[in-house]
């Protein structure tokens, strides 16, 4: 007999070693996330994926699925907190979406839409952050970094390099690169690296690609992030078996 957990009342099978996020994605249940990516080791820092597991808040992208867990995710309360956390990320950096090349392809923006975020709620930090346009093919705009470490992990785990790291403490966190000059051009980074394409926001962008796809025809202009995310994690609605859904009291 396979082991199962329930998420918002829906019974979901899982395999030993899977996290709650893994099990949920495989079963077609979207849990909002930013620092999680199925190809890389979990990090657990953005806290957007926080769910209640048997009454305790845990990050679903790091917490192991265990037989019989009762997980709540798509609740009004948790989504309110997720929206606030997203707003925190917006005010911490400088996200001027209308002028950003990533707009429409940006996961931060898309998650904001998904969570029905209509304003920034909190006062802005107006952090003074810089651009690194030194590399011939790729630029870093620190204004839009949310410290998800996906570029750090992609560089280490997929590219076999060590181009990026997050440095500093507390609100002074910042992205650094592995060169004496501190500039991207002096690292062994290449435009073909996985790390060049992983950034969920517009912090790492390929040069000379600007507005190839016009605004209005970009990924999240058509689709909600939940569909895109599930499709990317390999979920196929027709082929994946979802355990019998109990009509849940959590569906709103």
């Amino acid at each position: 007999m396979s082991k199962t957990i329930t998420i918002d009342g829906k019974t979901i099978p899982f395999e030993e070693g899977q996290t709650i996020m893994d099990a949920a994605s495989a079963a077609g249940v979207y849990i909002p996330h930013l620092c999680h990516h199925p190809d890389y080791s979990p990090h657990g820092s953005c806290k957007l994926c926080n769910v209640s597991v048997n009454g305790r808040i845990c990050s679903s992208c790091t917490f192991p699925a265990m037989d019989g867990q009762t997980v709540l995710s798509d609740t009004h309360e948790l989504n309110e907190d997720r929206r606030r956390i997203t707003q925190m990320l917006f005010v911490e950096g400088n996200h001027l979406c209308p002028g950003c090349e990533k707009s429409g392809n940006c996961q931060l923006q898309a998650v904001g839409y998904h969570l029905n975020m209509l304003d920034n709620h909190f006062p802005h930090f107006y952090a003074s952050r810089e651009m690194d346009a030194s590399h011939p093919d790729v630029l870093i705009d620190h204004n839009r970094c949310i410290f998800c470490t996906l570029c750090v992990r992609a560089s280490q785990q997929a590219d076999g390099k060590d181009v990026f790291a997050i440095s500093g403490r507390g609100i002074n966190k910042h992205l650094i690169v592995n060169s004496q000059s501190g500039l991207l051009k002096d690292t062994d980074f290449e435009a073909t690296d996985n790390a060049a394409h992983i950034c969920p926001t517009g912090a790492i962008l390929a040069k000379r690609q600007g507005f190839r796809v016009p605004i209005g025809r970009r990924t999240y202009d058509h689709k909600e992030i939940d569909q895109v995310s599930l499709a990317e994690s390999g979920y196929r609605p027709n082929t994946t078996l979802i355990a019998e859904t109990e009509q849940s009291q959590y569906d709103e």
Partner: protein
Amino acid sequence: MKQSIQNLAKKYDHQSTHLLQILREIQAIHHFVPEEAIDALVELLHIPRTRIISVIEFYSFLHLSPRGNYELLISDSITDHMSGKKELTHYLSKQLNVAVGSVREDGVVSLDNTSCTGLCDQGPAGLINGYPLTRLDRPRIDCIADLINQQKPLTEWPSELFQVNDNLIKSGLLLEHTIAPGEALKETFKRGLQETLAEINQSGLRGRGGAGYSTGWKWHLCYEGPEEDAFCDVDAQNQLQRYVICNADEGEPGTFKDRVLLNSFADQVFEGMTLCAVITGASKGFLYLRGEYLFLYDKLQSQLAERRQSGLLGNNILGQGFCFDIEICLGAGAYICGEESALIESLEGKPGIPRNRPPYPVTQGYLGKPTVVNNVETFLAATAIALHGGEWFAKIGTEKSKGSKILSICGDCTQPGIYEFPFGTNLKTILAECGADDVLGIQIGGPSGTFVSNQELDRTLAFEDLATGGSFIIFNSRRNILDIVHNFTHFFAHESCGFCTPCRVGTSLLAKQIDKIVEGHGSAGDVVALEELCQIIKKQSHCGLGQTAANPVLTTLERYPELYQSQLKKISYEPGFDLDGALETARRLANRNDAGAHLAQTDASGSLPIASFPPSLAVAEDHE
């Protein structure tokens, strides 16, 4: 310089786990970590420079740019503020001609603030090149300023400037009797290891670092290790690595009992670690000593050497065939490193970022091996229990909190210092002992704990009522609660490791929101917004720091709602920043300062804001 870095790397066996220790030594010599040193370490330790930089930028005592030859830090603890820290720092800054947060032009001295130094019973306190300065006042500051201006080496400074007193005022169950080195170990070998573990279980001892986890059970889990261990063959079983770590980070403001325990009872602490090692099968132990306690380092090292001499550490302990030794590692100014998994990261030479759990340290701790982390006082108590038995300990205290608790009492009382009370003692008794008659409230368990008012003095010291790692700060009726909350809230914002969003951004937002209210710019919606923010930080944060960072606001808001309300302006909304202030640069450029160059924040009746922002820019109540 290259040569000296090579020697340093060699001293630490070229182990990147010792990066923090190496960087501390470089900082001590050069007063920063020079570029050249970083280049050399990349080669010598085979680590990327990003790793080195991220460690330097994480710890408050390490720097990428030069500090003064005299690095002067003044403690920012609330008790230091209560004894005139602000005015003294101002005076010091004038005498030395250096601004707070900067280095004097000649490079001789730098001045800055630092989080609580663990000297709240003898403040205002500071640190100079890592060594404590106590009982600061104007004459002492004059003397210090002279010594610095004459550039006298620290070794020639009068020793009373560095004098740290124990102030041990009331001993109880644990501190009354001293235990001779080896006594408890001998008793343990006589009784049997599992039998001694049973005594510790029976004693009901719970961790003294704050969380109160059962010590016996923790040791048992570490002994068992992860499931995989059970399946390896007998030879491999004998090779299993276990670690014992003593948590002497003592960063919670107002706590200083571990300082005294390590100064006067260290042998008993080391013996507790050794007991834990023989019971769990560990061969290596660490004492993680907060950087602020550097002054204890040499003394502790010589005590370890003595224990090796007496066969209480090293190979074949007391002839029983056990191998165990203890290494002392120093922190470098980061409160979060008291959190056990952050502490382990720090011991591995990394920034102190709390790990995801599970796995817990008892199954995967230091270098991924089963590890016990216990507080200094927990090990001290374990030694006494191993000698006197579980029953001796369990007969004192309450049902869920056995034995006694060692408190660091400071603030508004006649006799600040160390007190040992049985669990279950009420606050009235404690206050009477330390000479506090005018009491507004007490902060119990430090900023991460609870503020109790003078209406609650029948409450008791116990895990089931008021738990504390040892911090006990008393405030008299002349103290302003909002000043206290302001100090604590900024402490957390400064100490957040920054790993997770709710704590990293949330604690800074909270500090801003408190500033706004304290400075009298709060409006009706602001207290509601404040409480909502607190709940998110508390609920959604990754570790204990974030989960408790809002406690100063929440516990005082619950008790004194009217205090917060009275700070608010009678308007429904006020922008998050000072409009008129924002025009200052423009006024300067235009060389104007007439009435027309100023903007009023509110209309004449004081009830409506004149200027308003689009919702996306405002701090207003939710418009959704």
